């Protein structure tokens, strides 16, 4: 027999590491059967803190070799993390000669390995939420989990707040159900970085039935020291008023890279990573061969190669996106550069923490502003970090699309009984408020395809045999297996060289915009597009330098509410000329210009600007609430204006404010503004605004895929099954007309009003505005605040109260 504490202590002793308090606390809690959350930053020894108690518990009970099969599941959000975790866990097992096998199960592993695992499961599986659900889709899956003693969810803060988090909740409820059937315990632990709502994060992970006296949060008290440096050009005029590139500061960046051992350069989008990679190479040949790029579109082999060479110190710099935000410890990295605003304190801290990874080391991050007002954002981040505030991650609830997918999954792997599954699902945080009626609707949806059962109907999916719900349609089962998951991406095509090498994949709509002979940047190469065959774009590397940068989706992160408030405070101080820090000294000329053309709003003031152009009347309102809130707010205000007079409005917004562009004059004064921002009638008005329907229609895109309404085709052969493909938009319109009570349509609206838009945040914003002073300025030329909104044309929403016929007549007249 082994002694639990001794095993753990001996491991730290062999490593010559000190066992920190939080590691001891966690060991004690685990032994006593607690579930909970380990809150520790990366680089604090959290993996071993979590892992050692689990193996020590098995060894101390002497059952680590007694039972074969799966004992521990380690859920990770990123496939890229799996290998490192596997090695770490396996190493500890080998040290104690436990005879345990730790294996990976993600979309990346081969069919052969999957088969081998099916025959004999390893003792430990590192798995993604999606792959776990694929396991739940296998007939007889229950026996796999019979001896499971613990589920660890790594990087829980990343999963929480997304539908992948909901997937984790559902999987845990099922695994717990399997163990409970055998009257055995299953321990659940999450590992999370610091977020503003850790207690809630634990409730979500453990479910609503988890007894409080066996739940605990263990906090590592280690605080990482972060050095922030803002890089500025010599003259602020060099920084543009709007934009997102920031290449002006290229020489400074080259300098930083050479002063450091290894640097990670974070950009907010993949397209930006390509631009920067290319610009750096072109301006400093010393970087050739020692600089690489890492983002989600690149092929797995490329990313593996980059990660390996980061580990062994062969790379001087890597240009990356959020694909390297998480987890893995690259020891040589001592410097991080962030290009453009990170939009949130948590993300900034996390990225900074990618440098100086060792316990006790200092993290160094350089911030590269891409336009002038981002200096206010970085200054706000600084202030937030000093005050030690960090964002919350709000969990998603009532995601019926994920639940439908899960129900069909279980119907394929042997079926489920309604009352049993209902009980389990109700124990999750995500669905604890679900009503029996909603559950019935879901059952009806998967068995009858909706509420009306027509005589001639042949809806075919899930059927009821006795009291078990089972899949009835073999092809539907195949399609379902291929569609498990909640990450909905655009259709992608593979990028291949003519001689066969695969470089990665890219969104179809981008390729569709290319003509043969066009040249674009991808994976750091200048590529000439040759042809598209099935779902593969063939290219060749070219010397031609005039390239289009692939403009792939992704990465428009909204400002978090903490940061938004911080920004308002900072601007308020600036308005009183009361702010003195590095960033503001440099921002002064721009702020003077803003003051000159319009004004800088005090903390308790909302600034409204109006301007006229040949496009019509521009009304700018600056609540500084972040893009997400502005989108709803702008729709609401536009709707309220359109109720009072017939006109058409197009709406644009950024993190600072929004613009209402009206085709007819609108009277603007303080009482009008106050009326427009009234809280009374908020819900009705938001719901009625065409804007909400537009946004819901966009939300429905993901919902339709996750719930199986839209099938994205078979991998590699998207051409097939064309007869079953239709656009999410069309389905949305049809459902809205014929089945307005459809829960998936309702979910699309709820996701805007509650989850995404945070109804509460909207109310808070309106309340704050109603108490604020209103300052209205008419401007002859767009102010520095207005300019970025005007030029950012990406997502304009439209709203109108004019009749369709009169709008058409107007458009025809205007186009004459």
């Amino acid at each position, binding site marked *: 027999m082994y002694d639990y504490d001794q095993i753990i202590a001996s491991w730290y002793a062999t490593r010559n590491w000190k066992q920190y308090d939080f590691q001891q606390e966690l060991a004690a809690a685990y032994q006593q059967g607690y579930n909970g959350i380990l809150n520790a930053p990366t680089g604090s020894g959290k993996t071993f803190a979590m892992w050692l108690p689990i193996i020590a518990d098995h060894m101390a009970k002497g059952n680590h070799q007694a039972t074969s099969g799966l004992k521990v599941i380690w859920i990770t959000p990123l496939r890229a993390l799996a290998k490192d975790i596997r090695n770490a866990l396996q190493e500890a097992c080998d040290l104690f000669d436990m005879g345990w096998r730790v294996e990976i199960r993600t979309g990346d592993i081969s069919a052969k390995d999957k088969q081998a695992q099916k025959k004999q499961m390893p003792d430990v599986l590192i798995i993604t939420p999606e792959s776990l659900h694929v396991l739940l889709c296998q007939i007889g899956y229950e026996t796999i989990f019979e001896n499971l003693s613990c589920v660890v969810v790594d990087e829980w803060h990343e999963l929480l707040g997304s539908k992948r988090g909901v997937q984790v909740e559902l999987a845990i409820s099922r695994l717990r159900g399997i163990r409970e059937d055998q009257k055995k315990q299953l321990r659940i632990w999450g590992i999370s970085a610091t977020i503003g709502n850790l207690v809630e994060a634990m409730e979500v992970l453990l479910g609503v039935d988890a007894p409080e006296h066996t739940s605990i949060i263990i906090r590592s008290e280690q605080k990482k020291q972060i050095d922030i440096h803002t890089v500025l050009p010599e003259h602020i005029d060099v920084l543009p008023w709007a934009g997102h590139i920031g290449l002006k500061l290229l020489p400074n960046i080259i300098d930083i890279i050479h002063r450091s051992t290894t640097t990670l350069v974070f950009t907010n989008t993949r397209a930006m990573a390509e631009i920067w990679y290319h610009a750096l190479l072109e301006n400093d040949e010393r970087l050739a061969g020692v600089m690489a790029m890492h983002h989600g579109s690149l092929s797995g082999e490329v990313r593996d190669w980059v990660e390996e060479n980061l580990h062994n110190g062969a790379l001087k710099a890597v240009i990356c996106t959020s694909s390297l935000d998480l987890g893995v410890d690259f020891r040589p990295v001592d410097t991080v550069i962030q290009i453009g605003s990170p939009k949130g304190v948590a993300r900034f801290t996390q990225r900074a923490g990618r440098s100086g990874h060792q316990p006790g080391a200092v993290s160094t991050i350089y911030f590269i502003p891409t336009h002038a007002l981002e200096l206010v954002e970085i200054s706000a981040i600084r202030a937030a970090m000093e005050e030690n505030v960090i964002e919350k991650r709000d969990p998603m609830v009532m995601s019926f699309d994920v639940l439908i997918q899960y129900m069909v999954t279980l119907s394929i792997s042997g079926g489920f009984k309604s009352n049993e599954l209902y009980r389990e699902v109700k124990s999750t945080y995500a669905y604890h408020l679900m009503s029996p009626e909603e559950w019935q609707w879901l059952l009806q949806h998967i068995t009858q395809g909706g509420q009306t059962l027509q005589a001639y*109907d042949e809806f075919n999916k899930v059927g009821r045999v006795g009291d078990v719900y089972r899949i009835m349609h073999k092809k539907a089962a195949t399609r379902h297996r291929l569609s498990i998951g909640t990450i909905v991406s655009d259709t992608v095509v593979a990028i291949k060289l003519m001689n066969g090498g695969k470089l990665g994949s890219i969104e179809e709509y981008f390729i569709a915009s290319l003509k043969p002979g066009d040249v674009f940047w991808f994976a750091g190469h200048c590529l000439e597009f040759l042809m598209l065959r099935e779902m593969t774009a063939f290219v060749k590397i070219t010397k031609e330098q005039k390239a289009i940068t692939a403009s792939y989706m992704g990465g428009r992160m909204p400002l978090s509410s903490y940061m938004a408030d911080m920004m308002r405070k900072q601007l308020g101080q600036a308005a009183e000329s009361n702010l003195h820090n590095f960033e503001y000294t440099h921002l002064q000329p721009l702020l003077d210009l803003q003051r000159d053309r319009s004004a800088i709003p005090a903390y308790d003031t909302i600034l409204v600007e109006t301007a006229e152009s040949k496009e019509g009347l521009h009304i700018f309102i600056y609540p500084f609430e972040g893009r997400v809130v502005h989108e709803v707010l702008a729709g609401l205000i536009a709707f309220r204006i359109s109720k009072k007079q017939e006109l058409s409005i197009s709406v644009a917004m950024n993190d600072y404010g929004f613009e209402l562009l009206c085709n007819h004059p609108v009277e603007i004064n303080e009482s009008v503004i106050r009326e427009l921002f009234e809280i009374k009638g908020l819900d009705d008005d938001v719901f009625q605004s065409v804007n909400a329907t537009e946004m819901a229609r966009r939300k429905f895109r993901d919902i339709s895929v996750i719930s199986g309404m839209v099938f994205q085709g078979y991998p590699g052969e998207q051409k097939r099954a064309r007869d079953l493909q239709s656009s999410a938009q069309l389905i949305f319109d049809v459902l809205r007309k014929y089945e307005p009570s459809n829960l998936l349509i309702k979910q699309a609206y709820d996701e805007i009003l509650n989850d995404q838009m945070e109804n509460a945040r909207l109310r808070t914003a309106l309340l704050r505005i109603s108490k604020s002073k209103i300052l209205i300025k008419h401007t002859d030329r767009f102010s520095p605040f207005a300019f970025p909104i005007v030029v950012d044309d990406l997502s304009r929403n*439209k709203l109108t109260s004019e009749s369709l016929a009169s709008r058409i007549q107007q458009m025809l007249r205007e186009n004459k």
Partner: protein
Amino acid sequence: MPIAVSIKGNSFRLSPDFALYWQDLQWLIIADAHFSKETHFRKHGIAIPAAILQEDLRRVDVLIRTYSPQRVVFLGDMFHSENNPGIDAFAKWRNGNNMPIDLVIGNHDILDRSRYADLNIDIHEDKIIANNIVLAHDDLSDIPEGHYLLHGHIHPCIRLAGKAKQSMRLPCFWFGKEKGVLPSFGTFTGGHAITPNKTDQVFAIADAQIVRIN
């Protein structure tokens, strides 16, 4: 009010319910109905509302009552897919009327020829020629001299833009010099944006009205 169009000496009326009425011959012309497309989806486990078919058939009834045509000509893609219960529902509807129906075969019309006979539908493999008008599903390249082609298949939509960055997309009839295209009739069908020439005539359907665009 339907709008009248004259093509090579023939008079047509444009119906805001996505159909064309040929006054000289008293034919009602419908393109891309895609009947029972939703049934096909449902059969494969995708829950598109089943009520769409009944609604689309009701719309045909209304058109027949409005124009009292001699016959109804479908310009292809009448049914979306293979035999399915939606076709049975159509058959039931068909039993209730004795309107002559013609179908010019489109790429989606893959039912057994005998099935069309059961449904009392006259099949035309690639076109119908009457007076100097050619009716087809596809955009045919070889039209007899002096003839005009009316076809379907592309589900035309027109995009309009205006002040304050307004824009919209509307289904439309699109008449060129030698050929014209009908909008798709089916509720559960998408649209394809077109770029008309200056001399083309385009009529959009907006709020159950026909609006001349071009």
